[in-house]
Each structure stands twice: as structure tokens, then as C-alpha cells.
């Protein structure tokens, strides 16, 4: 299918999210859409999928002008969309989810499970999407759930597949598998519109690249004619430091002390298993590991969100084992939660309100139990500028911000009070390169101001760039603590469950102070 968008304009009040966007996707093409946070990529895709109505412009499918009143229309014209937040029924099986809404039925309206299963099997085989048709969706890892979403679109015979930031939640292996699927779809003549912030992925998979900024298309390129630095500059409008600059850490006293920390979750599984870890003032410890190896639970146990089964958590000498989140916050711990929409923000409330979620009852925002709304607004205006949050005003609901700008709101809130310990889970997930640069700089500044920092990240690049020490977690245990100079393979082996002691001695010295690393 050949898709043509001509002069698409979409406004939200006075804000122009898409400003005369032109875009052509050829049959069998993997087309990458790049752009900084809030550039209007998701908005454009929502217009294309019939979720939003554009104010001006035309959508043409194979030369014919089309109007989509709702996603149903778009699906009928062969467009499929995989949203960043999956829309699956968790308790249904893969096959049931795939046919949901277009169920093959037998006489008397009974669901034809056999045909549903056969459909799934046929599509899986055709495009190399391996899934078990009878598995219950909630028991599957995100990477597989995403495949179910793709299957859903294919089952409705999508000729053009929209993938909005599909890789943000995937492990490196899952990303490689996804790319394989995308290539086989393109080879079969299907077109793919792929949104990501990771320039490496763009270079690896794209046939053509369109870059957006402030609602407009600012350039197109082919991967062979360009490079990551150029793309970053085109996206952000200035040259971007793709490396983290930081002086060697000068660690001080122990701030975070975990000893024998063990967490058993509600299913009775030991998710954190006798973890001993120290993070000192003025150093960044990066916790690496494939997602789902207990990193999230560890962060939650430290911040009082999850009960500790045994062992202890101490922050600056204070025993915070099983303390309430409030006590932890009052002890000077800042927390950037992994799931910003679920745990970090209240999407219906304003940016200004979200910025005071954990200090709303303190001066200068509150006096004698009443809020100083003027002060709340003034502080919010300042933070919009300080953290470069792109929004019409501090009083718009935070849920209307682009994904990356929502993340900046969380980071802005957590970094704007005195911090002894910063626990940040996936702090740059969904951010563009410019914002990543900024957030990384702020984290390093916190470190240099004497805070202890624990970063949980499934991005190996981020771990290597930020960490003064790198702790690797596997199945709830720390399998090794290494210096950032350590080779990727070695860390990879630790992530796969090898113990540090079992590995051959590393070639690099433990003090190999690497101060600049590629992070794209």
C-alpha cells in the first residue's frame, strides 16, 4: 500500500501539534519517524489511524483520498496500529485476543476456536512471529504480548503497520526479533511506520527516515546517506552531545546500605534474594540486568512501596526497612518510578499539581493546611523552563503531554528537593536524545552535589555511560559489581547469570575510569 499524507494539520487549542505535515510511505518500505518529544509523531499517527480528526490536509491510500471517522475505518482500509500501551485482554488467550472483534463464529454464534487457532498459526508461520496460540496473554512477557498486537493487526489484513515506540519496553533480544519480523513483513510488501528515539535502531532497520520538529517535517534521509549525529542535530535543532561528560566520582560515606535484602512477592516467589549493596555519596551505581530480574522490586523495596521479607535497608544511617513511602521521602530519597503513568503521574491533574505530588503539604506550597495556588503555579512555570517541558501552560492536564514530556515532569519533581539518595528506574525511557542528554547531566549534577544515585536501567548503553560502578542483577541476585570500563561481553555474561567469580579475570583494570561513552 502506498500511503500519502498531504498538509496534515492538527491543533489542540492554540497549540499546533501537526503543522502541514507531508509524508509518503511506499509499499514494502520501513519508514522511520524521528523527532524530539512533543514533535507530534503520536498525534500524526492518531490522525492516520482515525483516532483524531485533522483540521486540514488529506490522507491518500493508493492515490485515493480517504476519510477515517474512527479506527474501524482505518482498519478496513488496511491500516493497523500497535499502541505503546497494549490493548489486550489479559485473561484471554493469544488466539482469543487476535480474533477479538472479528471473531470467526460457527452456527448459533459459537466462537470457532479451532479456526481462530489456525489463523494465528498460519500468520505466525508466514511472518516468523512465534507465539503459542493457547497461552494466556497476562502470563507472557511484553515482547511476546507485542507480537500478539502485531498478529491482531495482520489478522485484519493490515497492509500498513504503525508501531509507536515499540522498542521502549523490549529487551535487546526482543528488539532484534522484532526487527526480523519487520523485515519479513516489508519483504512481503507490507509497509511499516516505525517510531523510535533510538538512533541506532533507526540506522539498523529503516529504509527511509522522516524527521519532525515542532509539528513540522524538517527533513528526510536514507540511513546510508546520514549518521546518528546528523540525525540528532536535525531532530533537536542543535548539535547534541551523544556522550555523558563526567569527572571521576569522588565517593564519600555510605548512604544506601542494603544487607541481605530479600523480597518475596505476592505469589510467593523470591524476587530479590539476599542482596548486599552499598551506594556512597557522590557516586552513581547503575543496576543492570534483563528486565524482570528483580530490579523493579528492589527499587520498590528501598522506596517503601513493597514489603521487605528479610534483611535491611538503611539510608544515611537511618533504618528504613519497611518504612512507609512518606518516611522514605522525608529521609531525603527521591524516586523516579519505572511506570510513569501508573505510579508517577496523575494524568487528569495539571502539570503544576503533578509537580508538587510529594511536597504538596510543605512550605512554600502549603500553609496551615491550605495550598498557595499562586506559588504552585509560579514554581511550575519555572520548572517548565528549567526542564524544557513542552506544554502550553502549567495548568493543562499532564496526560495531554507527549510521552517524553511526561517523563520530564516526573524527573523535574523528584530533582527539585534536597536529595540524599536518588533511585531512578528507567529514567530516560521514551526520551529523545536531547532530553536524555539533559536528564543525564542533571543526574551527574546530583551526584556531584553529593547525592548517592542508584540507576536501574535495562539499556546497557545508559548503564555504561552513567555508572561509576555497575551492579548486575540476575534472578533476584547481584551476580557481580564491576567498573564501567568492563567489556560489554563480560557484563552480558553476568546478565545471563554467570557469577563474577566464574569468569576469567578481566583484561581492563578495575579503575579504568571511562568518562565518555557512546550512549545512543
Amino acid at each position, binding site marked *: 500500500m502506498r500511503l500519502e499524507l498531504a498538509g496534515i*494539520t492538527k*491543533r*489542540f*487549542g*492554540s497549540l*499546533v501539534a501537526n503543522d*502541514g505535515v*507531508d509524508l509518503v510511505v511506499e509499499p514494502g518500505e520501513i519508514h522511520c519517524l524521528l523527532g524530539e518529544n512533543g514533535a507530534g509523531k503520536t498525534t500524526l499517527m492518531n490522525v492516520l489511524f482515525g483516532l483524531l480528526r485533522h*483540521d*486540514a490536509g488529506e490522507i491518500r491510500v493508493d492515490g485515493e483520498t480517504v476519510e477515517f471517522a474512527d479506527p474501524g475505518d482505518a482498519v478496513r482500509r488496511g491500516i493497523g496500529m500497535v499502541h505503546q500501551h497494549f490493548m489486550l485482554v489479559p485473561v484471554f488467550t493469544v488466539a482469543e485476543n487476535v480474533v477479538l472483534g472479528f471473531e470467526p463464529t460457527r452456527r448459533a454464534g459459537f466462537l470457532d476456536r479451532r479456526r481462530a487457532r489456525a489463523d494465528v498459526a498460519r500468520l505466525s508461520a508466514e511472518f516468523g512471529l512465534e507465539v503459542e496460540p493457547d497461552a494466556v496473554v497476562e502470563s507472557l512477557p511484553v515482547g511476546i504480548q507485542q507480537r500478539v498486537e502485531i498478529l491482531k493487526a495482520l489478522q485484519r489484513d493490515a497492509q500498513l503497520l504503525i508501531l509507536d515506540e515499540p522498542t521502549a519496553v523490549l529487551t535487546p533480544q526482543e528488539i532484534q526479533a522484532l526487527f526480523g519480523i519487520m523485515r519479513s513483513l516489508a519483504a512481503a510488501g507490507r509497509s511499516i511506520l516505525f517510531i523510535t528515539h533510538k538512533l541506532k535502531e533507526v540506522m539498523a532497520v529503516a529504509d527511509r527516515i522522516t524527521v519532525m*520538529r*515542532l*509539528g*513540522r*517535517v*524538517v*527533513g*528526510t*534521509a*536514507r540511513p546510508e546517506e*546520514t549518521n546518528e549525529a*546528523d540525525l540528532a542535530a536535525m531532530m*533537536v*535543532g*542543535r548539535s547534541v552531545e551523544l556522550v555523558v561528560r563526567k569527572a571521576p566520582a569522588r565517593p564519600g560515606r555510605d548512604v544506601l546500605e542494603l544487607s541481605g535484602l530479600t523480597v518475596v512477592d505476592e505469589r510467593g516467589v523470591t524476587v530479590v534474594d539476599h542482596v548486599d549493596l552499598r551506594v556512597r555519596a557522590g557516586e552513581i551505581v547503575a543496576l543492570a540486568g534483563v528486565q524482570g530480574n528483580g530490579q523493579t522490586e528492589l527499587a520498590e523495596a528501598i*522506596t517503601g*512501596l513493597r514489603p521487605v521479607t528479610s534483611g535491611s535497608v538503611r539510608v544515611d544511617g537511618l533504618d528504613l526497612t519497611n518504612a512507609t*513511602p*512518606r518516611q522514605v*521521602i*522525608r529521609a531525603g530519597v527521591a524516586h523516579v518510578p519505572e511506570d510513569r503513568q*501508573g*505510579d*508517577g*503521574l*496523575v*494524568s*487528569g*491533574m495539571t502539570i503544576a*499539581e503533578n509537580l508538587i*505530588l*510529594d511536597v*504538596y*503539604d510543605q512550605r512554600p506550597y*502549603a500553609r496551615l*493546611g*491550605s*495550598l498557595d*495556588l499562586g506559588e504552585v503555579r509560579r514554581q511550575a512555570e519555572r520548572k*517548565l*523552563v528549567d526542564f*524544557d*517541558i*513542552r*506544554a*502550553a*501552560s502549567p495548568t*493543562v*492536564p499532564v496526560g*495531554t503531554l507527549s510521552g517524553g514530556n511526561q517523563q520530564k515532569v516526573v524527573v523535574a519533581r523528584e530533582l527539585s528537593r534536597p536529595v540524599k539518595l536518588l533511585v531512578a528506574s528507567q529514567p530516560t525511557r521514551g526520551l529523545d536524545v536531547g532530553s536524555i542528554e539533559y536528564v543525564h547531566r542533571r543526574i551527574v549534577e546530583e551526584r556531584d552535589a553529593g547525592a548517592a544515585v542508584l540507576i536501574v536501567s535495562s539499556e546497557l548503553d545508559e548503564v555504561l555511560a552513567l555508572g561509576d560502578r555497575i551492579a548486575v542483577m540476575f534472578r533476584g541476585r547481584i551476580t557481580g559489581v564491576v567498573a564501567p570500563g568492563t567489556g560489554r561481553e563480560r557484563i552480558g555474561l553476568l546478565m545471563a547469570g554467570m557469577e563474577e567469580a566464574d569468569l576469567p579475570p578481566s583484561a581492563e583494570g578495575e579503575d579504568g575510569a571511562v568518562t565518555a561513552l557512546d550512549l545512543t
Partner: protein
Amino acid sequence: MTRTETGPPPAVAPATAVEPGPRGEPPAWARLARRLVEANVAVVTVLALFTALVIGAILITATTPSVLHAWSQVGSAPGHAFYVTGATIGDAYGAIFTGSVISPSALGHAISTGRGWTGAFNPISETLVKAAPLILAGLGVALGFSTGVFNIGAQGQLIAGAIAALYVGFAVHLPIGIHLPLVVLGGAAGGAVAGFIPGILKARTGAHEVIVTIMLNYVFLDLLTYLLTSRPFQQPGQSNAISRTMPATARLPHLFGSTLRANLGFVIALAAALAVAWFARRSTLGFSFRVIGANQRAGRTAGMDVRRVTVLVLVISGALAGLAGTVTLSGTDFFLSTGYGGNIGFDAITVALLGRNRPLGVVLGSLLFAALDVGGASMQVATGIPIDLSSVIQATIVFCIATPMLVRELYRLREAGGGSIQLFMKGWSS
């Protein structure tokens, strides 16, 4: 690399809104028209009201014998059929209005003769009397809803408040300036205690507040029945289930002279609405209520104490329901009997829904509900159309408001981008 520069290169990173470009800007009238069709809250509410009146009119047409008779002879006198229909509908709705707000003819009479003012203003006075407890209990329910706590126990809390107020009323003897405030506080405290029970049960054991509050309604209803036949509540020398009466020092003063029943209770209700509005918007505690109502996990992550808020919401909600019981007791009834409070506690849920959990909305919704109740009774007397018509209109309004999708479909409204109607039942299952 090809750089397709469209227009001037955008300036680097302005943190605020992008100014709308000159190109493709729709004219002002088109934007205005768009805004009107976009289904904002006010438009949906007005259309719901309109729909309800239309359905009411159809019902009147279909059930009034004189109208049906006229239509059976529509062949010989078509104009007559339409005339009778129009007149009947007009009379019915006119009677609701004159019965609940003001009667122009009675007013004219009073102006010309200088007497009969009471009759002219009695309808609006009765509406205020009916609205006061609805507002108070409705505010409590709304506060719970917007915090994600479903307090279905306003009825029981209202009774608990009334019992406490009555006790303070007859058990102590003080001058009115001290006694009356004590009675009001006592009523609020009674309701607060009744709200505390489901609150602490939910916080401590996770018991679902819907079940607990519904069941507590029966507990308080039966507690009242028991107290009404035992000392010290039962009226001395009575064998019936009737309570002692409130002494004069425990009664709310009338607002417009002793012949109209409108009393300070309505002022208390308005003051409570202002207080709740301030509380929700401006107080730190109200802020945490809103956060937890919208996203409990985010509230918890930010260090808010969800259990404490759960208990406090039910306590405050109960106190407001308790005040509702107090203003009916001290304002108009002066004694308690079995089944006290009628349906107020349940109508409060409807009113909270109608008012979209906003204090001003609750006040307006309560006035509308009270007017339909009071006016419906007058309509039955004046036109013979049963008062149930009022109930049908009330129900239709609520139905339309509760299902904004229906109204939008009916009137082909486009969904508004922001401020559209939020699904209010969110959190019911949690």
C-alpha cells in the same frame, strides 16, 4: 541527505505553545460553532433536561384520558387534538413550576391586596426546605465519589446524625445561641461516627465500602426503630414509636418569617457547599483526596497515606450526611419516627451524579430535584396527572447524564478534546 525545509526553520525549543500559523486557521464563527457542538458538560446537562421534558410530554400525551379522547377523534377535529395535547402538557409543566418556584397569579393577588404573601412564596420556600438535606448529603456522596470511595450509606449516616442531634437537643438545656450550634455539631459528629465504621473496616481489612455502607443503612434504621420505643428517646407517655421533640432552643430559625418553612438549614447547606469547594480546590488534605481518587498508586508512590485518606473521606462524608439529618430534624420535623429521612440518602447519590461531583453542581442538582418533587405534588393536585411523572422526569435526566454517550449520539455531538465527561464510575471495582 535531503533537507526539505518547509517554511522558516522553527526556532529552537520555545518552551511554550506554538502560535497558530496563519495558514488554514478556521474563521471565528466556525470555531464558535465547533465549540458549541463539542459535547461539554453544560451542553449535555441541558440536553438531558430537554430530553427528559420531551419524554415526560410523550408520557402525558399517552396517559391522559382527555388527550387520548381528542386523538381518537383526530379525523373530525385534527386541530383540537393538537390543542388539547399542547394545553395539557403546558398545564402540567406550568403546575410543576408554579408549585415549586412561584405562582404568578398568587403573587399578583398578594401585590394587589397586600395579603397572601405566604401563599405566593410558599412554593419556593418548600423547594429550599427539600433541597437543604439533599445538598448536604449529596456533597458527602460527591466527595467520596471523587476520591474513589463509594459511600452508599448516606441514609444510615443521616439517621445516625439525627439521633445524635436529637439527643443533644433534649438532653441538655442551654440558651439557643449555644444549644443550637451544639445540636448541629452533634449531628455532624453522629454522621462522622457512622462513616468512620466503614472507613476503618476498609482501611484495616479491605472490606468493600459499598457492601459495608449498604448494610449499615439497615443497622441504623433498626437502631432508630429500637430507640424510638425505649428510654430516653421515646416520647414520655407515648406507646407509639415516636421520639421526644426538639426544644425551641434546638430548632433552626426561619428565614422569612414564621409562616414559611424555609429555615437556616438551607444556609447551612450553602455554607457547606462553599466549604467543600474550598476543601477540594485549596486545602492540602483535599489535594491528597483528589490525587488518590484519580490515581491511587501515584498517591502512594508520592508518600500519601491511602488508608488514612479512606477513613477521613468516609468520616467527612458521614458528617455531611449527619448534617442533612440534623437540618430536617431541627428545621422542619422536630421529632423522629420510624423510617426517618425517607429517601434522602439515596437521592443524594443521584444528586451527586447529576452534579458531577462538583459542589455547585450538587447545589443546582438538588434544587432541581427538590423542585420536581415539590412541583410534582402540586401538579397532581392541579391537573390530576400523577406525581410519578416527576419521578420519570427525574429518572430520565439522571439516565441521560449517566450515559453521556447516549446524549451525544442522540444529538450527534462530537466528543470534546479536553474537559469531556469523565467516566465517573471509575474505580468502582477496586
